[in-house]
């Protein structure tokens, strides 16, 4: 019971963090057809910006300033990079963002060093909120939960209840019609790209001190975000939300199960000496999203809630 409750809570927080990353990526992907390989790099930039800004302004200002800076960086990338490559097709765009991920990681290494920086949880939130089954539950995780849910509500309101959201939704499916109606579609693309990057930056700000802020953080979470987008389905925020939670729960539950294959399949005569018998469920956790990805692409290419194949 204890493990289940903790895994549920942590899985929910991790899943919402993933959704914060993947919501921007899904919007960008379904709008421009670009699977932004550098999306997780913007998440990393968010964490590093918050670290540096936080030293001068404190965490609370950085919480707002860092995502804005990341969004501005994203806008520049779209305007001067991606837009130029767009003419050469989707593969060139994919390659461009792949190269960009390389460059951002190296720049981060040069500016902030090769090792993790001491980006820490603000002291105001560094206490335990309540006690569960005899162990303390840190308040910062609940804060992350609150920010994620706030973002979720804000995004939903923006997309479904405002005029801007209407235009964005229309540009997803009918970009030509939208531009005939007098809207500047390239600028909408740029703004969506910037907003997606800013969301990734926000995830970095609140995730960077929860996890570790180091140059390899983009590389470790990036592929998982792709999995979320592919599993959720093209152009579907709801799908991305479900997939984020699914992967969040899947990974946290797998980590908390300490059984090995030998124990589970002992009825089949599997011994604990071989390689297969020694594998534990916990060590499989990093592989689970990719197994899900490959199965999904083979069996249901349009994802959980996607409207079309990509």
């Amino acid at each position, binding site marked *: 019971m204890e493990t289940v409750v903790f895994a549920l809570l942590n899985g929910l927080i991790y899943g919402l963090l993933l959704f914060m990353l993947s919501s921007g990526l899904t919007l960008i992907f379904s709008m421009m057809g670009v*699977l932004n390989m550098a999306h997780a790099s913007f998440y990393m930039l968010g964490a590093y910006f918050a670290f540096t800004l936080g030293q001068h302004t404190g965490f609370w200002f950085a919480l707002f300033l860092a995502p804005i800076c990341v969004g501005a960086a994203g806008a520049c990338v779209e305007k001067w990079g991606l837009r130029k*490559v767009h003419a050469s097709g989707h593969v*060139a765009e994919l*390659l461009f963002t792949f*190269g*960009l991920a*390389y460059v951002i990681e190296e720049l981060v290494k040069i*500016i902030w060093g090769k090792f993790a920086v001491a980006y820490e949880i603000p002291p105001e939130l560094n206490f335990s909120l309540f006690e569960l089954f005899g162990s303390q539950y840190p308040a910062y995780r609940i804060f992350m939960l609150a920010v994620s849910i706030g973002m979720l509500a804000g995004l939903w309101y923006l997309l479904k209840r405002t005029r801007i959201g209407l235009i964005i939704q229309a540009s997803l499916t009918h970009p030509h019609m939208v531009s005939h109606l007098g809207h500047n579609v390239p600028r909408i693309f740029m703004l969506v790209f910037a907003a997606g990057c800013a969301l990734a930056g926000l995830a970095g700000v609140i995730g960077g001190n929860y996890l570790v802020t180091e140059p390899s953080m983009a590389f470790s979470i990036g592929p998982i975000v792709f999995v979320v987008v592919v599993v959720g389905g093209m152009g579907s925020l709801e799908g991305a939300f479900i997939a984020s939670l699914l992967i969040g729960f899947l990974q946290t539950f797998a980590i908390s199960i300490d059984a090995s294959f030998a124990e589970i399949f002992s009825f089949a005569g599997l011994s604990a000496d071989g390689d297969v018998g020694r594998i534990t469920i916990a060590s499989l956790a990093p592989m689970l999203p990719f197994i899900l990805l*490959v199965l999904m692409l083979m069996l249901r290419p349009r994802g959980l809630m996607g409207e079309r194949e990509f």
Partner: protein
Amino acid sequence: MTDYSLDRLPDLAPSARYKFATRVLPLLLLALILLSIPLFEPSRTWLSLFNAIGINMVFALSYNMLLGQAGMLSFGHAVYFGLGGYAAMHAMNAIENASYDGGVWTSFPMFALPLVGFAGGALAGAVIGWPSCRRAGVPFAMISLGIAELVAAAGFMFISVFGGEEGITGDRMNGIELFGLSLGPLGEVYWFIAFWTFLGTALMYAFTRTPLGKLAQAVRDNPERVQFVGYNPNRVRYLVFIAAGGFAGLAGGMSAVNYEIFTPESLSVVPSGLVLLMAYIGGARYFAGPILGAVVLTYMQSNLSDYSEAWLLYLGLLFIGMILFAPGGLAGLLLSGANAFKSSFGVKEFLRLGAYLISALLALAGVVVLVELAVRHSNGFGEAFEPFGWHLAPDQVMPWVIGLVLACVGMGLLRVLSRQGGTGS
């Protein structure tokens, strides 16, 4: 009325001379270069660099069978390199054991290990390609990424096969000797690498001339029409994928003999990314592109990394620059340069080319100064960047200004030049 009878039609087939110049001559040149390298008696450093280049050449060419020929973007090609290499590594140990205990492997020469690698890579390609080649484009790229992550994770998990963190090692000086090569000294390994590099390159070139190779290009350009003609694009992709996996495994086998060690790192996404950079920077649209890319990148990897910590940043910038300004890669740049040289090359064009080169060099110098200063500043050892005897200290303002001005002037000039070119010609 004009008579359009068949015997009056012009012969459109390429002349024998043209065929020789474009199909046989480049391979002869490659053979000549490979044969003449030992005449210069290169040092051990150079020899090991040449060996690494040979391996990467075959690897990058095999990657380009996917990217350049069939239009399949893979983020996990190192899987086949690594699995082929592991197959060769296990065969190497089997040969060693057979030299004590006897068995089937006694009659297998160490020289032929890349064949084992080829078989391993092709087998892996056949198994993994079956599910992944049913989709093209971005889904294929995503599946390849997922599979690469899976295989790399499995590599660390199955210790008896992949040797865990430290990998598995072997000894190449066992079994029967072919061509009188014991494969002990580096000079003899060079001949081994040169042989397989040439064979691999020639075979992969021959592959582009086969009906399957031609079909692969058709599938890349227009899969729908290929379907109308009566071929199954997925089947073509699958067959090309197996062949590409096999040649990647061949490179893996070469690498197994050269380094005598294989670790699960070699299966991971990092070498897959590097081979993608090699093929693209060299020029994925041309057969010779990946060869160029492999030479340049391997050289950068082994030498530039001594000069600068930020060489990966330069590599990334080079890659992005290529995508933005020269999608044909190095091969495309060279070819367009040669074409411009052939057709109407007057004083004006010469000056223009000179202006381009100078402004590009200015921009490059500016970027290098800025990056190197930043590296030294962030290291915080108080070191100064000293190119050609100049003293540029990162704690002063002037060096940063110099770098910034150089970069801005160079890029501005490039912009002006390219605008003029757009309206002028």
